[in-house]
């Protein structure tokens, strides 16, 4: 694929005008497009701000059987994108508070599905395949079902019910240890480093009076250090990033109060939900991690390759549309699909719709990435008439501000794309 630079004129204010879609400002979307690798996901509320900030010490050994990963980019991403997971996980733990505006009222189908899920969940050993099957039709809001189902689908909770409480306790204490290990301020780090190098007892040395002796600083570390590898500098930079995340979240989602910490309900949930969120997020993102590594961009697993797959999929199912988009109007899929894929469609739809889409994403046995590509393809096919009639400008505008759709229908179309034999 030819390396194309995003042209300057694409950054013009033309793309910044708001349309009828979701509440977040559109110029934010554009900013995030051009600053590909400093994505600050603003789809969600932040958890209570972490005590310090993560120091890029290599993370402890893998969680479950995940392959070892480069520590530095991982932690940075976790900070920035953790929030996107939180918005959805707020539903994991606070299903009752969910302002579910997706379904008008429970239909007979929903009720039966709810009953099926509850039955399945109450079994001693949950049949995950069966769970997937039911969940792929949509999980009803309420009764904390989605919360449990997602945790099972992501493998956070084991299938055997009797192990649940012990697993949860184990994971939550593990998370606590991670925090203690990683979130230490530079003062503390310096002190620990010194303890290991200085063996003589300082107390014995302290005379009652006299000039205080000067000692050398270790590793050139001092609070005003501007060095890239300085722990102090990194501490301040991380603090700045966290402040920015906080500000963005407050600005874009002032109405979501789950983690604001004001109510006692929120407080009691914060402790466990933070740990649960962390592990679920890690699970979820483990499949998509490669999209966020700049070095992997042009590789077989990188974001470019995934976007190409989407393009191929479209070509397979709707050649006319594909030709019109990519050849005639030259709408490079990178312009819209990048955000669709990396943020798992959380920016394109409202909260309730996202939940519905994620139900399918997580439950589909083909795996989230394949499912995601099918859904993206379906998104394109559903608005094909408008796309075929449009030129570059209008198409891009449309795709970057995807119109509200009937999600069930979208998922139905996406499902149909699977049935067709590939190649």
């Amino acid at each position, binding site marked *: 694929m030819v390396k194309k630079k995003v042209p300057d004129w694409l950054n013009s204010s033309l793309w910044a005008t708001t349309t009828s879609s979701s509440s977040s400002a559109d110029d934010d979307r554009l900013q995030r497009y051009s600053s590909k690798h400093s994505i600050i996901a603003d789809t969600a509320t932040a958890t209570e701000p972490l005590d310090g900030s993560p120091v890029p010490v290599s993370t402890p050994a893998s969680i479950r059987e995940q392959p070892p990963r480069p520590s530095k980019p991982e932690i940075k991403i976790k900070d920035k994108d953790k929030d996107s997971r939180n918005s959805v996980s707020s539903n994991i733990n606070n299903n009752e508070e969910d302002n579910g505006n997706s379904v008008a009222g429970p239909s007979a189908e929903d009720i039966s599905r709810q009953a099926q899920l509850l039955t399945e969940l109450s079994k001693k050993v949950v049949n995950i395949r069966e769970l997937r099957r039911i969940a792929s039709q949509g999980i009803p809001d309420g009764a904390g079902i989605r919360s449990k189902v997602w945790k099972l689908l992501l493998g956070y909770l084991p299938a055997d019910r009797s192990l649940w409480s012990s697993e949860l306790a184990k994971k939550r204490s593990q998370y606590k240890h991670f925090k203690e290990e990683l979130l230490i301020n530079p003062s503390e780090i310096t002190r620990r480093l010194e303890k290991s190098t200085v063996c003589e007892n300082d107390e014995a040395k302290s005379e009652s009076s006299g000039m*205080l002796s000067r000692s050398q600083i270790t590793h050139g570390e001092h609070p005003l250090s501007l060095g890239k590898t300085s722990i102090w500098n990194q501490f301040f930079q991380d603090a700045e990033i966290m402040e920015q995340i906080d500000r963005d979240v407050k600005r874009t989602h002032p109405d979501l109060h789950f983690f604001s910490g004001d109510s006692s309900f929120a407080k009691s949930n914060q402790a466990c939900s933070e740990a649960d969120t962390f592990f679920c997020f890690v699970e979820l993102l483990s499949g998509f991690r490669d999209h966020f590594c700049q070095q992997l961009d042009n590789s077989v697993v990188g974001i470019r390759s995934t976007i190409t797959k989407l393009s191929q999929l479209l070509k397979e199912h709707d050649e006319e549309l594909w030709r019109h988009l990519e050849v005639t109007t030259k709408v490079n899929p990178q312009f819209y699909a990048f955000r669709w894929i990396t943020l798992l469609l959380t920016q394109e739809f409202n909260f309730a719709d996202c939940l519905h889409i994620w139900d399918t994403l997580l439950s589909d046995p083909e795996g989230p990435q394949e499912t995601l590509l099918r859904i993206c393809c379906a998104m394109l096919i559903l608005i094909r008439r408008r796309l075929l009639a449009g030129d570059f400008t209008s198409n891009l505008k449309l795709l970057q501000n995807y119109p509200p759709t009937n999600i069930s229908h979208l998922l139905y179309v996406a499902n149909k794309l699977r049935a067709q034999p590939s190649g």
Partner: protein
Amino acid sequence: MVLVLAIGDLHIPHRAADLPPKFKSMLVPGKIQHIICTGNLCIKEVHDYLKSLCPDLHITHGEYDEDSRYPETKTLSIGQFKLGICHGHQVIPWGDLDSLAMLQRQLDVDILVTGHTHQFKAYKHEGGVVINPGSATGAYSSFTYDVNPSFVLMDIDGLRVVVYVYELIDGEVKVDKIDFKKTATTRSSN
């Protein structure tokens, strides 16, 4: 972890034009929580500059300061420590450690920050610790022209203070540190 900058005796514009550029590049807003200034800035512009680094600024009056409203001495609490500030030209003999110790007992503080001599010093006696951050611009003093620019940054963490000494020697910034702990029994809080 509280970072406190101790700085003073800049003598801008009379004896020096500005802080050394290498110091200025390190002193950026957002890192420091408090500034303790011994005095002799001397003009408002320097006051404003320090204020931009950190809004919590404490200054005492040096004999050449144009703003006469700064107090002669000041005390404040940061964490577990009580700090006192005084320019030092009032304490005679200038720079005499015993006389400064008297002042420290008078102010009843753990750490006394004082200036005037344009010489960095960190001294411990039974009453506490005296720190002189020197002159941040290397301005000449009443004693000598040979002054290295210096200032101090204290990291107060519980009962422990790490004093980072920043000095400009031969055009290079040298950083040393001094560690001391406050034993909980030496001073009772009122």
